[in-house]
């Protein structure tokens, strides 16, 4: 986890051809490097073992319920925005065995999972996703019950952000105050500049580990011009971000519309399939599953990602509380954009757009919230 440096962020220049050297240092330091790669026509964050596995030259087109990759004319490394997975799949895995238990003649013996905490280096974390990780930090490590597996993985993780120089069609981080540029919470942040002639990264340092990497690479400081060019690129991203969610009084406005008929309209379309929740980088709900072997001598306890769209999610003695699809969708949207604030002091949405793109029937949280408010 980045330790804040005393001084303010410093800026350096990394040539595109030097990205490999940065990666090589990470491999030398025995980081388990996770970086964007292409899998089945989508960007996915996968473990990589060499620089050659990093993807290059792609952009993505995201629409509600649709995702397509296309060639990037500027041949950038990071021309696309976010893939369907998020970093939570590494910090807070979808299926996690918590412990095993065994019966001996009389007793019940718990065998804790003894595997060492992973040491990840995440390359290509977008600003919205960094904010999402900070939300998970708050929920999973700052409350009365600390998720130790999460905390260990998080403490070890090195974060290299990529600031966005292109806005995806479903991105609305600017509305949510989470991007497109990261200002803290990272070890390094890269802004990729590719203008046909030059191709380089402006590198911001955000921690001591980040500074160390820079000095090992022997990078030179960025010029005023280079800093300005990067700033302009970010401003351009903001100007191009067409999706907007007005967050003024949003919490109260949604709260005031709990009985709106518009929820029925959404429920007609919503499949209650759970995709939106599973792809959301801040959704953290999980189910605890106990299984036994046939002889009843061994048991396993597993934590699995769960979603508020299933009947089982609200099953208490006698039945489920949220039986209608309407009540389940309403729970989700209301939690993300309203009650999360009461619970944790911030929105539960960072505006990454994943739930919009990866909803099989293109249900759009920003648009639905807007329609809901206008329907009143």
């Amino acid at each position: 986890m980045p330790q804040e440096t005393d001084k303010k962020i410093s800026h350096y220049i990394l040539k595109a051809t030097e990205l490999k050297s940065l990666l090589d240092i990470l491999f030398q330091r025995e980081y388990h490097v996770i970086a964007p790669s292409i899998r089945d026509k989508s960007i996915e964050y996968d473990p990589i073992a060499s620089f050659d596995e990093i993807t290059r030259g792609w952009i993505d087109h995201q629409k509600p319920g649709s995702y397509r990759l296309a060639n990037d004319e500027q041949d950038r490394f990071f021309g696309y925005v976010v893939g369907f997975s998020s970093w939570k799949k590494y910090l807070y895995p979808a299926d996690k065995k918590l412990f095993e238990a065994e019966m001996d003649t009389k007793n019940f013996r718990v065998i804790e999972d003894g595997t060492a905490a992973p040491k990840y280096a995440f390359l290509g974390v977008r600003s919205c996703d960094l904010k999402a990780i900070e939300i998970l930090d708050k929920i999973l490590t700052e409350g009365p019950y600390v998720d130790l597996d999460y905390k260990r993985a998080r403490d070890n993780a090195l974060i290299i952000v990529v600031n966005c120089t292109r806005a995806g069609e479903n991105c609305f981080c600017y509305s949510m105050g989470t991007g497109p540029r990261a200002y803290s919470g990272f070890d390094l942040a890269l802004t990729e500049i590719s203008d046909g002639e030059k191709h380089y990264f402006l590198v911001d340092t955000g921690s001591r580990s980040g500074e160390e990497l820079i000095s090992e690479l022997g990078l030179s400081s960025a010029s005023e011009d280079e800093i300005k060019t990067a700033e302009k690129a970010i401003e351009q991203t903001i100007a191009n971000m067409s999706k907007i969610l007005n967050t003024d009084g949003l919490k109260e406005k949604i709260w005031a519309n709990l009985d709106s008929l518009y929820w029925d309209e959404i429920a007609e379309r919503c499949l209650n399939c759970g995709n939106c929740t599973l792809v959301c980088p801040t959704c953290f709900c999980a189910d605890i599953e106990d299984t036994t072997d046939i002889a009843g001598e061994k048991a396993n306890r597993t934590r699995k990602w769960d979603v508020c769209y299933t009947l089982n999610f609200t099953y208490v003695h006698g039945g489920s509380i949220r039986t209608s699809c309407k009540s389940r969708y309403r729970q989700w949207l209301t939690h993300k954009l309203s009650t999360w604030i009461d619970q944790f002091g911030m929105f539960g949405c960072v505006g990454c757009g994943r739930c919009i793109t990866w909803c099989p029937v293109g249900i759009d949280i920003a648009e639905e919230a807007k329609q809901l408010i206008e329907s009143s």
Partner: protein
Amino acid sequence: MAKRKPKLAVWKFASCDGCQLSLLDCEDKLLEVADSIEIAMFMEASRAVIKGPYDLSLVEGSITTPHDAERIHKVRRASKYLVTIGACATTGGIQALKNFRDVDDFVSIVYANPDYIESLNKSTPIADHVFVDYELQGCPINKNQLIEVISAFLNGRKPNIHSYSVCMECKRRSTVCVMVAHGTPCLGPVTHAGCGAICPSYNRGCYGCYGPKETPNTSSLASWFEKMMDVDDDDIVRYFRTFNAFAEAFRKESESHET
């Protein structure tokens, strides 16, 4: 004195035997099963039959003949718990395609002597005839789920079988969505989990082998197929009429697209 082992029986009605094969397919797990239960009747594995009553009966297949409609009651009477396995036993199976047509027409075309054929008009699930303690969906069922159901019954706990969508399994294993990224129609959002999202992981849309999930919104999915993916009504009928054609949600959806 050693505890009496519970007795297991496996019964077959109109079916292809694939689900029973899943039990044989459990290989080393099957030995574990045999350690804890007495496999008292399992014709696909052995001709030796131990008389009932049975603690747990697994029933494969649907009811398609008057004879079977009677036989299932005998099975119920001989069983403490009755668990149906597979699409045939839980929804009528692929043979329920006949439910949408007049059976006499088929019979007279197919058989030289139709008089010898005694077939009901409809292929129906076991639960239409007797009380069923638990239904395990899938065509064929997943062997791990079968072991889970057997262990749960033996250990007196609820099986960890989920009735949510295939999408849940798809995303948990980080499979790229074929609907969104490839434009391939997929029944995953309305289909019961259990297979582990096999087809999407091979870049195919889900065929709906595990039948409808809980609260399936088939009409929304079908209208997305139509409007956004150029699937016509005839094909929508085909999508919903496969192994679980007579499951209520799938049946109604296919009927509403009949032209």
